[in-house]
């Protein structure tokens, strides 16, 4: 994003801390959230503040482009950039929706069990979506099969029927902040647990379960 179009150079986080981000940093954060979401086997925390800020930025850019004189090369380049940002944003949201549809009973259960202080993994719209999706699926099961079954077989426990996200799957990651003492539990029984340190800038292939809290805090980046 250049100075030519005179964009707002400051942007604040909607939440409690007032963090000032340049647009470039905002886009970088969006891309990181996008990559993390794509490669993680479970649904990650909802970054709705980034989504909102990016949408605001896109609106500003659109307005500025309308005011600028047409036929200018810069206009088409900026339009291309806007399209790219829009694609990243919608891909991020699509990925989250796909995971919600895949794991809906577990996500709903997690949301119910969540202690009050913790941030939610779902945005308010996504929460409405999960509830409606669960209701529709249950109604569908009932109408297609369950109501024709004898009375003692008319329940399907969705929490057990729908497969859980596989937290043991392996992911590639790049370390952004140095970490010490990560406990690794190898798969085979013969090897015992051992402890490793993660150097900054190194890349690893490791089970998701081990580094899940690091992804949430932003100390590592999935690639």
């Amino acid at each position, binding site marked *: 994003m250049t100075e030519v179009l005179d964009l707002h150079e400051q942007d604040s986080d909607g939440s409690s801390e007032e963090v000032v981000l340049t647009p470039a940093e905002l886009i970088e954060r969006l891309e990181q959230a996008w990559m993390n979401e794509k490669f993680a086997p479970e649904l990650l925390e909802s970054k709705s503040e980034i989504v909102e800020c990016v949408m605001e930025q896109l609106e500003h850019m659109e307005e500025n482009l309308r005011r600028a004189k047409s036929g200018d090369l810069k206009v088409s380049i900026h339009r291309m950039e806007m399209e790219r940002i829009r694609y990243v944003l919608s*891909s991020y949201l*699509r990925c989250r929706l796909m995971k919600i*549809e895949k794991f809906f009973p577990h996500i709903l259960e997690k949301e119910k069990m969540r202690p009050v202080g913790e941030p939610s993994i779902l945005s308010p719209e996504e929460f409405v979506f999960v509830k409606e999706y669960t209701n529709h699926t249950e109604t569908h099961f009932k109408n297609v099969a369950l109501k024709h079954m004898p009375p003692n077989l008319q329940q399907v*426990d969705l929490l057990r029927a*729908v*497969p859980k996200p596989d937290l043991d799957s392996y992911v590639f990651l790049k370390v952004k902040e140095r970490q010490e003492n990560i406990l690794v539990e190898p798969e085979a029984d013969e090897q015992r647990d051992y402890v490793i340190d993660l150097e900054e800038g190194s890349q690893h292939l490791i089970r998701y379960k081990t580094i899940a809290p690091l992804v949430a805090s932003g100390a590592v980046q999935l690639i």
Partner: protein
Amino acid sequence: MSEAYFPVESGALGPEENFLSLDDILMSQEKLPVRIETAMPRLGAFFLERGAGAESDQALPQVRRAGEPAGTPERGTAFGLVPPPPLNLFLKLSKVIGFPDAEGLGTKLELPLWLAKGLFDTKRRILSVELPKMYQEGWRTVFSADANVVDLHKMGPRFYGFGSQLLHFDSPESTDISQCLLQTFIGRFRRIMDSSQNSYNEDTSALVARLDETERGLFQIGQKGLNDFQSWEKGQASQITASSLVQNYKKRKFTNMDD
């Protein structure tokens, strides 16, 4: 991610098969040779089809069909101590007739995997499971010699999944079986990856004929990746095409118009 429909994938290679997965339902239908350890009086004609005659008892719930009198109520089931039976259990049991006959100990039967798993219990000793031929010592040495040559499709089209679920029945050979499955897969994997990534727009039936279902799934993923890459290179990736779910509707509409 651009798919319209995500089928529930098979969990057979993991700790437990997935309830809603069609692949798992097909896999657990395959037969397993089994010996009965306790007498099961009055379990009738259900077992007649599968081996020696048997006698029926309260071991399996009976289905009351329309028109039949509500006769003897079932007196509790063997499944009472086991988590509630899956949906497909009921569909299979709808064929039970309930017919008094005699069954003794030690009868050999072939039961599908889901039934054997439900009845298996180390404490109550209802069944004892024998491993099918291809998981036994003889075939294991064949696999360790050269895994690439074996026709896994003939060996039971779901070799890996079935083998992984067999580990549930604690048998002294379980570690050997798991090692054998792993080594077979490692031996065959390279050829699958190579052939799937390098045959573009060709007839692949010769390559796929000797693979089992898990490997065929991998082969298809490889082919799909290759095709997607080629279409991206040709610039077809940005063209919008009709979704696979909707294409059939369109065809029907045309035939309607023609009538």
